[in-house]
């Protein structure tokens, strides 16, 4: 034992000696620590996303951060600016208002990546957004935004719904929901969801056709659908679902509501109220402030 130890010690010395013969380690860091050049938009993002929430808002295309299997183009800078403001007000702001700033600071994704074009799937559907492991949300199709005349329905379908949808993925990826949810429906469609219309899906007990693709999607579609539409809309959905559909939707909603309250202290009806009010307010906002 002792012999081995000495041997080891000796070899260590030899190695060290050899190492000492090489170049000295430079004291210059290869990482550039000077502050980057920021234009007005970059500065606004620094003050409104980075400092308060530690979120990196990528309006420019980052190849490493985007999926190489899709053919994509970057976002238009004007539209990216509007999107940055709308996202802050409508999404981060809603949760801040309900739960105070610490909630978003803790749970928000650390990166938002904007992409100008849609991402086309091989079966003809398009990807609106993706959420990955609680850290990053990618929003596609930014270039289709009409910033001269904001269209509330378009904004809802393409962006607000998607933002909440993706954020809810982050929530349930952090704290999972009850597996009882998975027992309510037993006919999830997988990729064949594209063959359903929303109307059919509701009679099957799914809030949208996309919800029928998998339980996780079902879960977040209920939340994002519920909070981005009026109470009358939800009543209408239940009414159109027929007897069996309605029962399933109501059972699922109960689990969703309890999950949000118990795991996150989120009252879903209060959240809806705030989101809807802020949606109206965002329509009247002036977006020329970043220059």
């Amino acid at each position, binding site marked *: 034992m002792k012999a081995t130890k000495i041997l080891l010690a000796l070899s260590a010395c030899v190695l060290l000696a050899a190492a000492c013969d090489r170049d000295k380690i430079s004291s210059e860091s*290869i990482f550039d620590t000077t502050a980057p050049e920021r234009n007005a938009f970059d500065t606004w993002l620094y003050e409104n996303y980075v400092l308060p929430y530690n979120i990196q808002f990528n309006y*420019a295309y980052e190849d490493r951060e985007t999926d190489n299997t899709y*053919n994509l183009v970057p976002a238009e800078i004007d539209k990216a600016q509007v999107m940055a403001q709308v996202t802050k007000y409508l999404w981060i702001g809603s949760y801040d208002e309900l739960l105070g700033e610490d909630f978003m600071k803790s749970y928000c994704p650390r990166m938002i990546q904007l992409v100008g074009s849609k991402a086309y*799937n091989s079966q003809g559907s398009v990807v609106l957004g993706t959420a990955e492991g609680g850290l990053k949300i990618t929003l596609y199709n930014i270039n289709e935004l009409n910033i001269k005349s904001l269209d509330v329905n378009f904004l809802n379908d393409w962006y607000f719904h998607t933002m909440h949808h993706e954020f809810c993925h982050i929530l349930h990826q952090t704290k999972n929901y009850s597996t009882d949810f998975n027992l309510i429906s037993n006919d999830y469609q997988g990729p064949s969801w594209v063959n359903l219309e929303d109307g059919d899906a509701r009679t099957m007990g799914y809030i949208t056709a996309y919800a029928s693709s998998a339980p996780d999607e079902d879960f977040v579609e209920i939340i994002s659908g519920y909070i981005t539409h009026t109470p009358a809309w939800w009543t209408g959905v239940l009414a159109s679902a027929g007897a069996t559909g309605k029962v399933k939707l109501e059972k699922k909603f109960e689990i969703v509501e309890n999950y949000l309250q118990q795991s996150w202290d989120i009252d879903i009806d209060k959240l809806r109220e705030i989101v809807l009010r802020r949606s109206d307010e965002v329509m009247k906002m002036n977006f020329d402030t970043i220059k």
Partner: protein
Amino acid sequence: MFEDSSAKRIEAEIERIKEILPDAPNGWLMEYFPEMSQSYGGYNLFLSFSPEMEVTAMSEATGKGKTATSSFSIKQSAGPVLSFDTYNEVLHYFSDPDDPAGIGGPGYGLEGDFEFLVLSATAEEVVLKGRKTGSVAVMTPFSPSMEWSDYLDDINKKRKELSDYYRLKYTNEDDETFELRLNRRYLEVYKYDDEGARYSEYYPFIVTLTGCRFYSPVVLGNEEIEGLILVPEMGEDGAFVPTNEASGIFVPSYPNLNELLITKNWFMARSGLSPYGQKLWDKAKEKLDAAGDKIIYCYLGMATNIQGTNYSFNFSSQKNGTGLLYFDYDYIGTDGISLQFSELGSYYGKEYYVNYGFNGVIDPIGNEKKRTFTLTTDDIKNPNWIKLTDKDDSENWFTVYRSTIYNPFEN
């Protein structure tokens, strides 16, 4: 081996590139080939870079009337990467999956890159390699003596001139001849494998002020052709001269007469037949008259229907519409052909064969016996008629016509 660490060297390189790009007084001309096999050909793209990291672009695809400005960055990856990272209507036209060109289809578009590895950069030339496609794009400073839009005008003019040519042939000093087809954005070369079967090679090109330049040189025998200069005054119908040293030139080629016979439609009439043929047609006409029927027109040509594509004697009858009788054919040299009825046809083809003497109508073409013909014409480049002279039967010959002849059994 190196004085500095690799990270410091890339940083220094990035700074060097940042100085080179804005330095060209009239911007840069990029020869850009989207898509990983360059199948859409090459596009002339103008870029002007500012020290404030903005780029302005104009291209052959979106036209001289449109310029767009956006930002660019130079990042570190497996080397310095030039990235056009906010949306530019001119630049991202080539990458947009919404397919603004209407060519590649939704989800694809032209599949061009907008992020490039900088392979080399000097004040005289910047060589880029697309990140996804691997296609190489070369930028050279554009001469201050010309406007971008004027250059695009010239390119458009040259493109139109190129489109006058389609069939070309090249003969080298060993007397080997190659058949080629000049398409809008690529040159197709016909080659033959060991079994004599024909296959095609495709060479994408970009239009230049004098003609075109190929993305990869065209391989013809032992030679490689890098580009073509169009000389419309050369020879009878113009020619293309290789931009690099080569043994031959490219001249327009014309289809062989027998190819023309098969690939186009040729109308028949009684007056075009020899007396031998006329007698057979008259017999058929008697039967048609007796039935109160007549033939509106008839021609030789390819017909496609549910049974496939066949070289046919096509006729249109007043009473029953279209009838087809199929023929087998073989090319003999450039001006010979053999024809014989294949004993197949459409429903009415067979009807008329059996009941209206059409077995005799097609006899001069080749029925029970296969007939071999020598072809002659008025103008090989643009024939109005082709005469088929039976090599084995001096009494049999007939002429076919480009224009439609109505009531062929009477005219």
